[in-house]
């Protein structure tokens, strides 16, 4: 019997245009807590999806061994049968079903041909005790807090006799006390012989709980560290997480004296009903005319929430305090319409889900944000519309067969340009770009960066949200770093460093 309960050898996974994993090796000892860390997009989740069979055998290269035996999982069911269970960041449960129904969903306890409800409840009570929950198994999932739901998910994996439990960012949506509780539960499970793999951005937690830490960077294994007895500290991990060369992939922008303040946010706080959580805490920032200001932070830090709440999409977030000023005037932004009228534009993080009408053509998508300027009486002036769309197509070099091509059939980079064109057509003074280069190739990225430089040279200002640190360092005049709904730092260009930003983003200074 080998020392390793799990070995993943030379795993390579390609997505169209991107190598997500490149010969990754990952070994887990029996009965340890193994933490997997890395920047956003380093490949952690992809690796875990391969392990749990979500990406089936054949869609990747490399081998998986469990207890020394080669495994070829083609779906989640097969990995579950081997004893591997995954708890994703977004919990997967049926909200309107009770706890016990959720726990036994798909592997119900039967008595003859009928479900044995009573036995399920009895078993659930035992399982809940194991995760230190003292609640009625017939409570509905939707009535529980996120932290409790997470524990129920763990109980569910225990009900399937999981030997290896994978937790993807288990503490990201928990408060301090809940996190503490979860971590001590994990230690207890470990003492009972369960092997745990945990993905986390919270390095303090990682250091305190991990036996081994594996660092991934750009789809490759950087190192595996023995972390027993506090041998490793957070700063060391960060060094491994970043440590890249800065390549010259950012177009040059001539530096300018910036003085006039365009946009001011003060004391901006918001509460999200759905998560029952204060998602934004007393944020204040300024943007000067012609400036690119970046917002750095890890996934779940609240960057998109900040952007959306600024853009007037309030119903999801209840503002608890805050003021916005544009050109010295107070603004009330109740809807995106108000924001657009005031001169604020927003390009969404996920252009396919909420940015573009994919069924419609390039022209439709560009002009829909400001049709009022194209009216001739009650009719849309088609000539003007065509000229407008064609101009943007030329200016932004949108590659399409014509402005009548459906946006669905364009490449990611060109779709993003259409999103930008749509935004520019509203004549904004301030642009909020949320992950403007996500999922597009290097060449298209360069074009987007150049466009951003052109925009600020024309006097617009940009707030750029990005998960790629290098991109922020390469493009921004100034940076705010966000962690857990707060700004944990503000840096001028001369203070930019990957280490510094990562430290602020993981907020280790404050926690230590």
């Amino acid at each position, binding site marked *: 019997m080998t020392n390793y309960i799990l070995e993943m050898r030379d795993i390579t996974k390609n997505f169209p245009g991107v190598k997500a994993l490149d010969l990754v090796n990952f070994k887990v000892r029996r009965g340890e807590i193994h933490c997997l860390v890395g920047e956003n997009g380093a490949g952690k989740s992809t690796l875990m999806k391969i392990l749990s069979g979500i990406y089936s055998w054949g869609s990747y290269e490399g081998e998986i061994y469990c207890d020394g035996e080669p495994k070829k999982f083609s779906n989640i069911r097969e990995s579950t049968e081997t004893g591997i269970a995954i708890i994703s960041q977004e919990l997967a449960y049926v909200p309107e079903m009770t706890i016990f129904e959720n726990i036994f969903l798909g592997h119900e306890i039967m008595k003859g041909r009928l479900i044995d409800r009573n036995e399920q409840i009895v078993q659930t009570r035992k399982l809940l005790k194991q995760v230190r929950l003292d609640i009625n198994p017939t409570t509905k999932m939707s009535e529980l807090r996120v932290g409790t739901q997470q524990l129920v998910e763990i109980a569910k994996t225990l009900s399937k006799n999981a030997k290896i439990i994978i937790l993807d960012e288990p503490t990201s949506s928990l408060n301090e006390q809940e996190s503490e509780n979860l971590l001590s539960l994990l230690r207890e499970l470990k003492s009972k012989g369960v092997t745990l793999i945990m993905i986390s951005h919270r390095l303090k937690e990682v250091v305190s709980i991990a036996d081994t830490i594996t660092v991934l960077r750009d789809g490759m294994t950087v190192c595996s560290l023995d972390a027993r007895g506090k041998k490793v500290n957070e700063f060391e991990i960060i060094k491994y997480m970043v440590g890249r060369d800065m390549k010259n992939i950012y177009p040059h922008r001539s530096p300018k004296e910036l003085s006039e303040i365009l946009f001011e946010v003060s004391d901006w706080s918001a509460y999200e009903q759905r998560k029952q959580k204060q998602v934004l805490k007393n944020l204040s920032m300024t943007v000067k005319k012609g400036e690119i200001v970046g917002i750095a932070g890890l996934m779940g830090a609240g960057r998109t929430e900040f952007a959306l709440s600024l853009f007037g999409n309030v119903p999801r977030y209840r503002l608890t305090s805050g003021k916005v000023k544009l050109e010295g005037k107070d603004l009330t932004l109740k809807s995106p319409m108000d924001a657009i009228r005031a001169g604020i534009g927003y390009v969404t993080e996920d252009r396919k*889900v909420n*940015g*573009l009408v994919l*069924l419609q053509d390039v022209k439709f998508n560009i002009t829909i*944000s400001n049709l009022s300027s194209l009216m001739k009486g009650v009719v849309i002036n088609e000539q003007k519309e065509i000229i407008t769309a064609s101009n943007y197509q030329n200016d932004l070099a949108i590659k399409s067969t014509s402005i009548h091509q459906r946006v669905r059939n364009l490449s990611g980079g060109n779709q993003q340009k259409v999103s930008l064109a749509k935004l520019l057509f509203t004549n904004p003074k301030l642009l909020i770009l949320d992950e403007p280069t996500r999922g597009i190739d290097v060449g298209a990225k360069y074009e987007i960066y150049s466009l951003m430089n052109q925009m600020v040279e024309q006097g617009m200002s940009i707030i750029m949200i990005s998960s790629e640190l290098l991109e922020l360092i390469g493009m921004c005049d100034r940076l705010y770093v966000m962690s857990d709904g707060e700004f944990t730092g503000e840096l001028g260009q001369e203070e930019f460093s990957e280490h510094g930003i990562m430290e602020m983003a993981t907020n280790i200074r404050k926690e230590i």
Partner: protein
Amino acid sequence: MTTKVVNKQQRFGLFAEMRHLLRQNIRNYAMYIALFIIFILFYILTDTTFLSARNITNLVNQTGYVAVMAVGMTIVLIIQQIDLSVGYAAGFFGACAAILMASGVPVGLAIFLVLLFGVIAGAIQGLIIGKLGVPAFVTTLAFLFIFRGLLSMVTEGSGTVVVTNEFFNNISNGFLPELFYIQGRHGLTLAVFTLVMALIIVLQIRKRQEMRRYQFPLISTSLMGIGLGLLLLLLGLLSVSLSGYNGLSWSILLVAVITLIYDFVLKKTKLGRYIYGVGGNREAATLAGINVRNTVIFAFASMGMMSALGGILYTSRLRSATPTAGAGFELDVIASCFIGGVSTTGGIGKVVNSVIGAFVITSLTNGLNLMGVGISYQYIVKGIIFITAVAFDVRSQGRKAI
């Protein structure tokens, strides 16, 4: 250069281009093909009776109320909603018109009032759906009950209300006046058709010139010629056929005008864009600054008006309002839209095609009636055709998505 674009496509050859175009726009052409097949089939099965002038006139007049309601429903379906109340709404509003006239209200005012009622009732549903967030399926199902109750309430005392007003009854039964004859044929009908055909030619050529001016890819001239020729031939045959009988009916004209207005709104106005935007991606529409709620309210208010108009057409056709009028209309209306290529997931749809869809549905009813097929079989056949049409549509969409 433009000519280069045209040449490039011509290199494929005419048939290859035709095939390419068909494959690209199968959603737009499918029901024309279906209609064509149905016509040929019934022409043979009914021993030519189906395509007689008398029956064609009959068929077109029968389609009227379904067609106008399908026009309204198209918008509702585009924005990813549904309206189940339209059948009994039509029944109720038709009865309202009959009762108003029976109690001495002048016909013009009665029609106006009924249309207004329709708009108000629709707007209320729109408000409940758009503002309170009650799903359309539930809201309109509730209104189905309400309209059904209202209909039996207003007809309780009298039973069937007979309409004696000639003007009103002519809406669905009358024809253009017989001003003059050309070789024994209805002159005004021929004149109207000639005008329409001339207009189509002019508009096509103008559109083509515009496309050329902006150097957009064009279909080859010969293919456009074939398409235009076919359309004109069809209209020509229809005009000859109709003018040999009673001429053009008012209800065809009404349907045509309503369809053109809606087509115009959807294609040319801001409102139309917003409708496609909300239907294609609600979230994106919101972020583009569109007021989604108002768009929803508009769609249902317009649907309410079309239900009222459908009720007027139906009552006029029967020359009376009955306590059971409107039952099951919603099925024909919704089916017409889906057969006409409105996407089941919203965002796509054309009113013209929905009207053609309505013709497909009524042609089926009409043809099967002529063949003497019983009503039970008719429903089964309709069901099969309906599911085939939508399955075909979903499949063709799926292929494109790859």
